């Protein structure tokens, strides 16, 4: 059949690949390199600045016994990881982070889901959520400590309040920006109520929701660090406790080691969210193939 043939021909012409004859192995290697080199460069830059600062002898700190350069600093980080309490402190802090963040996601999803479904609530609560988002979480600590005392609950409370608004807002924005055309198509297909949410509105809002989760993580991590510094709990060994100890003993080298650990955890988790975001956008054809 002529039409049939022509149509298939046209399909094949339109789908002809962009002419990449590269082998899988070399493609992976090239990709790994593109991903790696900016990070290596960033680390090198940080080390160079650190060394320059050290060499500049600012305020004569080099003469002080607690000043340190990158070589001694990294040595100290390694020692603390291998023999000190840093690893167990990281474990404690990450555990609080995971629990706090998970609760924040739960609260954010429930609040965001309810608010986006009920228009009057939307008008009333929507601006409160945004207001909460802009409120510095450290301002919540007096309130939390009065309510919960110097406990882990106080810290968790602030972590949840820090992260949940971003997550709720991400979900609400995603629901709001579900393309009306897709909604019409979904209704024509007979998707109603729960099915409409399950198969259309939630998947459509996923990119915005993940963006909210990512922002929520940043807030959660900051709140947690502030919390661990402000709320010192007896017998608990967290990154905040270590950092406080270093401050009291004027141990700059050790403080830097802990800070590097905090920074690295933040960067790694942020990287995971970026990966998730890229995967979603790639799946939906929202990435320019020339760049990706």
């Amino acid at each position, binding site marked *: 059949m002529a*039409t*049939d043939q*022509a*149509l*298939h021909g*046209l*399909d094949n012409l*339109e*789908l002809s690949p962009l002419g990449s004859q590269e082998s899988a192995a070399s493609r992976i290697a090239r990709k790994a390199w593109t991903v790696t080199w900016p990070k290596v460069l960033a680390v090198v830059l940080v080390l160079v600045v650190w060394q320059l600062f050290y060499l500049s002898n600012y305020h004569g700190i080099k003469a002080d016994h607690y000043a340190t350069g990158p070589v001694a600093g990294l040595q100290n980080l390694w020692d603390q990881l291998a023999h000190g309490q840093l690893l167990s402190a990281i474990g404690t802090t990450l555990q609080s982070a995971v629990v706090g963040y998970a609760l924040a996601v739960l609260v954010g999803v429930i609040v965001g889901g309810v608010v986006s479904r009920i228009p009057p609530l939307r008008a009333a609560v929507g601006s409160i959520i945004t207001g909460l988002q802009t409120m510095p979480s450290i301002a919540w600590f007096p309130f939390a400590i009065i309510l919960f005392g110097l406990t882990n609950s106080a810290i968790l409370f602030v972590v949840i309040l820090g992260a949940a608004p971003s997550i709720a807002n991400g979900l609400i924005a995603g629901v709001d920006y579900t393309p009306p*055309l*897709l909604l*019409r*198509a979904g*209704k*024509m*297909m*007979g*998707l*109603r109520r729960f*099915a409409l949410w399950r*198969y*259309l509105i939630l*998947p*459509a809002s*996923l990119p915005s929701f993940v963006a909210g989760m990512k922002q929520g993580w940043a807030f959660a991590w900051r709140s947690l660090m502030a919390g661990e510094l402000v709320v010192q709990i007896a017998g608990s060994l967290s990154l905040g406790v270590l950092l406080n100890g270093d401050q009291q003993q004027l141990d700059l080298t050790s403080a830097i080691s802990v800070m590097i650990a905090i920074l690295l955890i933040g960067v790694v988790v942020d990287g995971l969210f970026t990966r998730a975001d890229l995967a*979603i956008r790639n*799946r*939906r*054809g*929202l990435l320019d193939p020339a760049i990706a």
Partner: protein
Amino acid sequence: MSISDTQATPPAPQPGASALSAVDAGDGPAVNLSEVSKVYRTGRTDLLALDKVSLAVRPGEFVCIIGASGCGKSTLLNLVAGLDRPTAGMVDTGGRRVGLMFQEPALFPWLSAGRNVELALQARKVPKAERQARTRDLLETVRLRGFADKRPHELSGGMRQRVALARALAQDADVLLMDEPFGALDAMTRDLLHDELERICAERTLTVMFVTHNVREAARLGDRVIVLSSRPGTVIGEYEVPREGPRRIDSTQVAHMAAALTDRLREEMGRHGN
């Protein structure tokens, strides 16, 4: 038939709802619009989009609707689809299932082509085992076998529109509403899809209401072409196109009809020029 007010207007059949009422037998129109008016309230002014449009579409008929901008073509289809209610008048599809296609494919970008089609079956509660076979058949119908796993963005515009057609067919529609479905495609692809659409409609005895502003397309595809005026939309012309064997976009018959349609449209546009 009388003009009923909003309250008395029976709700247009909900798409996707099970057609409990038996489909009208034989002679009655598949789609019947009687004196349908639609007013959009925009702030202080009311916009009359459709003014007493009456139109009866026979089962299996292919009706093209053309008109200049602002003639309420899309409004008309929304009313028949049940996505919107008329301000006055009656829309009756006799319990038939209605499918709607847009100028954009409106596929769900997070699903593969196959899953997009399958979801339409799922929404109609077709059992899982049956769904896969029917999805395969539907993709075969639009000649996209082997593309089930591709995502919409990996397909060309014409292929996406064919997936959208397969999805509309998955709703087991007796009446297919098409809102400029090929408007964004290149001429070569469009010609091929005209042939394909004709074949599919014949195979399934579909009733089609096809909105376009391309007079050649209307003359090529329609058994009947309805010309709508602009602001408000009313029927100002009706042209029967005799079926004399296969038609081509470049045949003289189509060209003559297209010329007549163009003249009628220009006359109407000129009315708004003063």
